[in-house]
């Protein structure tokens, strides 16, 4: 029997766990990385198929993955099966919990939108009085963003916007199309900034821990990766109160195992990390573990419009094409009056084709409508900050266990008027900009998806200076247990309107360097 005691045991191999492995192994620490899923041989696991060979012609098996609206019949097996790892919620308040279990985690599939948070997020309470500030600010995290962005090869255009700090970019000097320029000019008249989408170019097919972090960590000789190891509980020494390792179940054989380590870093994704801590009954002297679940509400096709000069196949390269990003522009000025706190961001594209459902026609006329608008559409997706509220929470549902006998989460989360009012403002404002730019608005959608849909859930192990109000300190370290760290999005204090991955990576790098330094000093 293997009885090695590792310096650090890391749970989860996605953005946060992968970055912890990358950082800690480079500092010479011996790390064991457990992931609940397999290490996928992509060439073998994914096969090209025409849609008509699928049993449901691309519709997917009805009722399967009912909460994963991102799933389709091609990729259904890529997501965690909710009959295998269920969760519960009140039928009146559905939550879309979207999960991936394989080496690389969700970093294999993210949309690669790469933004920094600003001090409008880190010091949100100072700005509007709601909730709590983060225990760090942008200056604290900037040196880590600076190092993470080149690893993920983030492209972008520097703008000097206080609400969207510039990064260490590969400059995006691609020209904007006429349609994009016209939209940006109309937006500018309303004091709405438009910039390039900031995106991780990655390497080859992925911008993932799988190809950008774990190979380097393995090359140090300090990393051991064990796939199919489902963490059940973190073990604790009753005398010292310190964590000693992790009990895990082997996915296929269902053997119950235990691995030992001097410290544990949890990066299993926001809600899985929280579930693991709750099931381990640790790190919750504050009573806020599992609370303050928040994310961004998400509306795809918030506004769909037609760019008239591109109708009937007349759109050329240069006339339409490309898109951009509208960072948060609401509630930045002191005393600005809106019927909601915080703000929203949007990304948009030009040169797409509108869906058939937007036309009140069928048969031959519908075909004419589709032919006439092909490549002539403007579309945008809006994402608004959901406020962190104590009552939005996860708890252990003691009545239900997953396929490995591990108690599951109950999720109790709902949006409020703040989010509804924000969504309406987003749609009305962007529709006005479209109109001002000379686009014909085809449809407005003020209805967002259920909480969870954006896959940006954060907040349930939040950090803070006050151990009574937070689970982690400013180093992502448990207030209660010095050798326990949580490095994923669960540590966020607010969701912001920006996609969270760059911040997760930077926090994990920062926490891991702190852990390595403290370990060297004998402080953990």
């Amino acid at each position, binding site marked *: 029997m293997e009885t090695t005691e590792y310096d650090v045991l890391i749970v989860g191999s996605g953005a946060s766990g992968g970055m912890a492995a990358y950082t800690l192994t480079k500092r010479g620490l011996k790390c064991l990385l457990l992931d609940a899923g397999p290490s996928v041989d992509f060439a073998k696991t*994914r096969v090209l198929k025409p849609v008509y060979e699928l049993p449901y012609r*691309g519709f997917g098996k009805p009722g399967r993955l009912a909460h994963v609206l991102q799933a389709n019949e091609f990729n259904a097996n890529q997501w965690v099966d909710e009959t295998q790892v269920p969760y519960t919620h009140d039928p009146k308040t559905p939550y879309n919990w979207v999960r991936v279990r394989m080496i690389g985690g969700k970093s294999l599939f993210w949309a690669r939108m790469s933004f920094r948070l600003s001090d409008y997020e880190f010091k949100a309470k100072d700005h509007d009085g709601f909730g709590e500030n983060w225990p760090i600010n942008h200056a604290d995290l900037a040196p880590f963003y600076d190092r993470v962005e080149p690893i993920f090869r983030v492209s972008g255009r520097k703008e000097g916007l206080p609400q969207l700090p510039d990064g260490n970019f590969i400059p995006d000097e691609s020209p904007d199309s006429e349609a994009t320029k016209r939209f940006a000019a109309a937006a500018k008249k309303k004091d709405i900034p438009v910039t390039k989408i900031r995106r991780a170019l990655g390497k080859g097919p992925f911008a993932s821990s799988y190809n950008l972090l774990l190979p380097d960590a393995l090359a140090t000789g300090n990393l051991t990766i064990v796939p199919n190891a489902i963490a059940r509980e973190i073990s604790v020494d009753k005398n010292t109160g310190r964590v000693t390792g992790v009990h895990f179940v082997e996915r296929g054989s269902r053997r119950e195992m235990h691995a030992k380590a001097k410290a544990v870093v949890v990066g299993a994704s926001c809600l899985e990390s929280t579930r693991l801590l709750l099931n381990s009954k640790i790190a919750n002297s504050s009573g806020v573990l599992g609370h303050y679940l928040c994310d961004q509400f998400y509306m795809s096709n918030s506004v769909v419009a037609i760019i008239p000069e591109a109708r009937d196949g007349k759109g050329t390269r240069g006339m339409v094409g490309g898109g951009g990003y509208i960072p948060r522009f609401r509630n930045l000025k002191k005393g600005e009056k809106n019927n909601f706190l915080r703000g929203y961001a949007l990304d948009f594209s030009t040169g797409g084709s509108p869906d058939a459902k937007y036309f009140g026609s069928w*048969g031959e006329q519908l075909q004419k409508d589709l032919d006439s608008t092909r490549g002539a559409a403007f579309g945008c997706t809006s994402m608004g900050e959901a406020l962190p509220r104590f009552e939005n929470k996860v708890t252990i549902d003691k009545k239900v266990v997953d396929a490995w006998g591990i108690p599951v989460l109950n999720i109790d989360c709902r949006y409020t008027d703040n989010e509804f009012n924000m969504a309406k403002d987003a749609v009305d404002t962007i529709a006005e900009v479209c109109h001002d730019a000379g686009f014909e608005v085809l449809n407005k959608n003020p*209805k967002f998806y259920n909480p969870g849909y954006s896959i940006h859930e954060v907040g349930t192990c939040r950090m803070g200076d006050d151990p009574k109000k937070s689970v982690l300190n400013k180093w992502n370290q448990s207030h209660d247990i010095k050798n326990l760290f949580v490095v994923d999005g669960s540590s966020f204090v607010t969701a912001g309107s920006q996609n969270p991955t760059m911040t997760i990576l930077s926090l994990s790098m920062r926490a891991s360097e702190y852990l390595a330094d403290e370990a060297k000093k004998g402080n953990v």
Partner: protein
Amino acid sequence: MKRRKFVQSLVAVTPAVAVAQQVAPPSTPPPATPQQPVEPPIGAAGRGGRGAGAGMEDTTKLEITSADAVGQMTPHFFNSDQYSALEKLSQILLPPLKGAPGALDAQAPQFLDFLLGESPADRQQLYRQGLDALNAQARKKFQQAFAKLADDQAAQLLEPLRQPWTYDPPADPLTKFLRAAKQDVRTATVNSREFNVAGAAAGGGGRRFGGTGLYWNSLDS
């Protein structure tokens, strides 16, 4: 035997599609089920090796015929009145256009009978009640079943589709059904073998069809 001839022409086109998409060489048959591993080619030419698959290529390929050439489909989810109405509705929503197969060529109603049979109860009710409502309105207005109406008569009953589309489902069940059917018939058609093969044979040419994707085998296999 029009149908059988059509099926044969599809088979003739399929390998060309496969090569264009850079999938497995035409000699490799597609996996019968997602879980079944694809046998890798043995030699450079993919045949004649002496490994695990040796000898398989000597097996005679039997001539086979499609079910459509020998039998008639009976709907098992919809009753015959509902199914006839669904066929008529499908034909109106997506007739053959610009040489592309329409919903009936793509057997969209047959597929929807299967899909709805496996769907959640609220979806099943939406379809059954929607088709019943179409028949009831047809009888009231034109004294015959929806399937027997002239196309312009049937189109009158589809007027609710002209209302601007909203994300909130319409309160009227018939309008809600018509919207669902418009979308489902379209997807079932453009994702059909018939539509895809015809589209590929026509060189794509701006026509939209379901195409090819990366299918994920089970991670547990």
